[in-house]
């Protein structure tokens, strides 16, 4: 099972990659942990940059139940509020 994690601009800048392809992470909670792990010793940076973000699966906010099972090919994103137009 493959999950694509799309990082925010700040996360991508800190990690040096825009997205992660994760295998064997069947729940959102595991995706979150695996993404944090990819920051290695910079886990605090990850925590800081995701403090006011929601988790989104295929465009739908999913943070209410992080144990929600994921499907193969799902896209997980970190959502930051913005304004504009």
């Amino acid at each position: 099972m493959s999950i694509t994690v799309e990082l925010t601009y700040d996360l991508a800048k800190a990690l040096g990659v825009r997205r992660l392809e994760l295998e064997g992470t069947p729940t959102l909670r595991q995706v979150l942990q695996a993404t944090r792990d990819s920051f290695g010793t910079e886990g605090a940076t990850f925590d800081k940059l995701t403090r006011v973000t929601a988790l989104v699966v295929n465009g739908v906010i999913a943070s209410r139940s992080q144990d929600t099972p994921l499907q193969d090919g799902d896209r997980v994103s970190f959502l930051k509020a913005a304004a504009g137009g």
Partner: protein
Amino acid sequence: MIKGYAGRILDVDLGNRSFAFRPLDEDTARLYLGGKGYGTRLLYDLTPPGIDPLGPENPLIFATGPLNGSLAPQSNRFAVICKSPLTGGIGSGACGGSFAFGLKKAGIDILIVRNQSATPVRLEIDGDRDSVTFLDASDLWGQGARATQAALGKGRNHAVIGPAGENLVLYAGIVSDERIAGRTGVGAVMGSKHLKAVSVTGTRKLELEDPEKFNDYTKWLRKLFRAHPVLGEKLRRYGTMGIVNTTNARNILPTRNFKLGHHPDAMDVSGEYLEDHGLVGVKSSCIHCPVACGREVTVEGVGRVKGPEYETAALLGPNLEITDLRWVNEWNELADDLGMDSISLGVTLGFAMELQEKSLLQSGLTFGDATGISAMIRDIAHRRGLGNDLADGVKRMSERHGGADFAMHVKGLELSAYDPRGSYAQGVEYATTSRGGCHVQGASMYFESTGPLTIDPQSLRLKAEIPVVQQNLACAINSMVLCIFTTYGMIPKQVHELDPKSRLYRTITYFFERSGPMYRLITKLKLRPLTWFEQWLTYVTGQTFTSGHLQEIGERIFNLERMYNLREGLTGADDTLPHRMRHESTFPHLDSGHPLDQLLPTYYRIRGWDARGVPLQRTLDRLKVRT
């Protein structure tokens, strides 16, 4: 005269080159404020039904409101009203820059331009001498907006058109400084009059009812705006392009002519990316604006110019499957200088690409390929070759070539860059807004998709109520005339710091989603001035304004616009969304698109309209809308 108004309408006839100053009507100002509201009232009264939008009978109305000319932040805007050549209904645009300020300094609330000149003409208005000079503009005809304004000089404030307006491109706009009244083809109406430019000067002072309180309050508010996470930070740092990554994560970023709502490389056209790659400065060309959301970029062969806004970046970017910011910058600059709406332009190019893909038109334009687009934009502005076809917008193109199912417009106006399939309230707003598929006539998506406190965008709860309240508020704001961005300040800093994963966040959104009639009731209360819109109007005019007053005025304007559209032949059947939006899903958990049919009857009922979308007589009577 009520304070805040200059008290004068300047009425210019280009046919016989005459002009007259007339008094502003106080009763109309009380009912409609100014700007879009007063302008719509004038358009309704001055014209018979069925006029040709590009004919001499269509007046072009430049309108300011009671806050223009004051020091209120973001009060730099003017509204333009006319019959739209793009939609056949109400045409309106709003523009920053400095022209509104100039008009008020000249002692003019509203400028009406009637009839047509046989040859290119420009106007010089001197408010101190009460003079209008009609000058030959042959030397400027064919010039871009930038060169035209440079030639006119810095001593006056200008509103001009570029070649797109001259050549009657149906989505041509009117430019002031580096801002544009882009939507609904107001620039084509100016071009039809052979009016290249209006320049205005004056040194009159605006009288306020309570200048001391107004100034103290405004000083305090400027500090509040500067410390606000959106107005003082995000918009200031990233501009409106700072929203790209949010709409992309939400799956509502137009991609491949709205076939998709997400592009894997959208980050390359985001405000954050621009900050690190190619941003050369910040543009604050709008007078009295503490936000300075405009970006400054470099375009090869041109130099430093204003950068794209979110809509432009999305619709000339991922919507065309292009994510190279250099191209987006170049096409944005071309659209601005040629004087056309980059929203309609982006959607029209995307439509031409899909027509090519489906072998319905040999446009030579393909998704993901920048080749030929710059040349096509120039051809559109000059109506050359296939550009002549694209200059008419997607509705007319779909009538000629087919592809109505993926022609992304409402009432003929091309859709803005928020896909309503992931933002249901925004979809209702697109479908019902008088000028067509536009996002700044309510910005409902802020409450469900992009803002700091969002309800479920794909439930049916509150999706009819939010557009009503927001459309009313936007009508009032566009009649003051203010920038809609000030509304972002209404969500306090503390809310922006709420973690969406927190219990408090979830509790607030739970109750907000279920507030229904209570939400509408609260906004209608006439207790005392709370927001800055209400405070400013109260200090400026001496009359008390509350949230309830603004809702009432906005509702009145919205219903008058509706009656204008009905008079011109639009019907409830035009309150719709493109077939693709209603029937194709971009979300794996859904097998259909936007549920407009389920929401529209509720929307009509809340509005006090019948099942066909016609305002009931008692609604018009309650609002004092004369027809």
